[in-house]
């Protein structure tokens, strides 16, 4: 299963490191990563593979959400089908 991790908010040192740390510890593989400024926000988007993930989807979602709160950012993980369904015919 693939998913998209999005990090939106104010840029700061160590965002990628801290998010990657959570992903690595839980055996989530990063397939692709991009970062850009969209609508005046720092936006980092990661395509990740969850097939070897050691925890449940909701636990990962919770961990990322908590990390986002401590960093003052919004961090979400969503299965990639939602974006494909909406934007690809």
């Amino acid at each position, binding site marked *: 299963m693939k998913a998209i991790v999005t990090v939106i908010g104010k840029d700061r040192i160590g965002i990628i490191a801290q998010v990657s740390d959570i992903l690595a510890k839980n055996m989530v593989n990063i397939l692709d990563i991009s970062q850009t400024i969209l609508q005046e926000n720092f936006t980092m988007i990661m395509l990740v593979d969850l097939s070897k993930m050691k925890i449940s989807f909701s636990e990962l979602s919770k961990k990322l959400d908590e990390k986002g709160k401590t960093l003052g950012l919004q961090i979400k993980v969503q299965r*990639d089908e*939602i974006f494909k369904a*909406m*934007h*690809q015919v």
Partner: protein
Amino acid sequence: MINPREIIETIHMIESENFDIRTITMGISLKDCADPDSKSARRKIYDKISFYAENLVKVGEDISIEYGIPIINKRISVTPISIIAESSDDEDYVAYAQTLDKAAHSLGVNFIGGFSALVQKGYTKGDIRLIASIPESLALTERVCASVNIATTKAGINMDAVEHMGRIIKETSQLTKDRDSIGCAKLVVFANAVEDNPFMAGAFHGLGEPECVINVGISGPGVIMAAIEKEKGADFDTLAETIKKTAFKITRLGQLVAVEASQRLNVPFGIVDLSLAPTPTIGDSVARILEEMGLESCGAPGTIAALALLNDAVKKGGIMASSHVGGLSGSFIPVSEDEGMMEAVKKGSLTIDKLEAMTCICSVGLDMIAIPGDTTAETISAIISDEAAIGVMNNKTTAVRIIPVCGKDVGETAEFGGLLGKAPIMPVSKFSSSEFIRRGGRIPAPINSLRN
């Protein structure tokens, strides 16, 4: 990788524009639960609903977490209870409603629809008993929704039932007077009711439906609103295109969720309902979309043209996004559930007459309208007859969910809470329709029903 802008657009729709899946509704047939012994029938009903819907709420929540899209309601619709209960000798069917309520509570669903009867041509024994049980059932239960179909284009209008429902609505209002007559908010009187509607209070599982089915209702007035806000001053051609594209996107997610839920629950996928369903939340209003098109306030001249464009463009955009479209599929205009509608009523720009005219071109009818508690049963029946005529003559679904609020009058507000919202009491005509309603009988099916 997927385009980052598209990813952010989707997230923005959910985070800032109130986009959500309004309901996953599981339809369950109770045809095999009929039993001469009513206790046994009710046990079968409870067991069957519990068996099929055991994981409904959990699956809804899992999908919501994994896709990052809120799924607001998980609901159940069942075969019209009049048909199932009729085999038993019970004089009233309140106990059946209580069984449904108990099942809804134990499964964690917030509404269960199907305390219903289809009487467009006449009553059976079960229909009479069910309808007579509606007021007490809605007063004693919390989550049960009732509906009665009193007309179809094929059968015409059963004016005896129309007269009867006026009295039933008054009685329901009286029995729930301590809660602003909330019972009436859970009771819909239909013309041309559909069998696969996922939205409450009018959902029931039709007789042509399979054993169990998943129907999904989407939402998204806020998303449409945000899209047309970016088209300030654009002509109607552009507006229609913008709405179509947006409707396509939101319906695709409805389809995705519907298919996913159906696979996880091992139940066939039925339909996606394309209705634009508002909520009382600011930024989730159909009225505000019409105003964004250039009307000072919803109800002003031009409202029907604006609504026609909206309703049609939503369907055109949505139809290609889903493999099966059904249910009501039209913009909803429930006054108490739409912040902009409430405001328009308070300002005096939106009247019951204008709402009635709006129902000619969208679903679903006079919906969640609070009227003075002293409105007579005959006037309510006459309002129902007008709506039924609009539905029957135009081959569309119409409905009346009207709340005569006991002890309250024009200028006051009824508070229902939650998704049902609150409604300013609207004035109704002071002229009598009593003699018209007392005639009884049936208004014959119109000539346009003869299609063969």
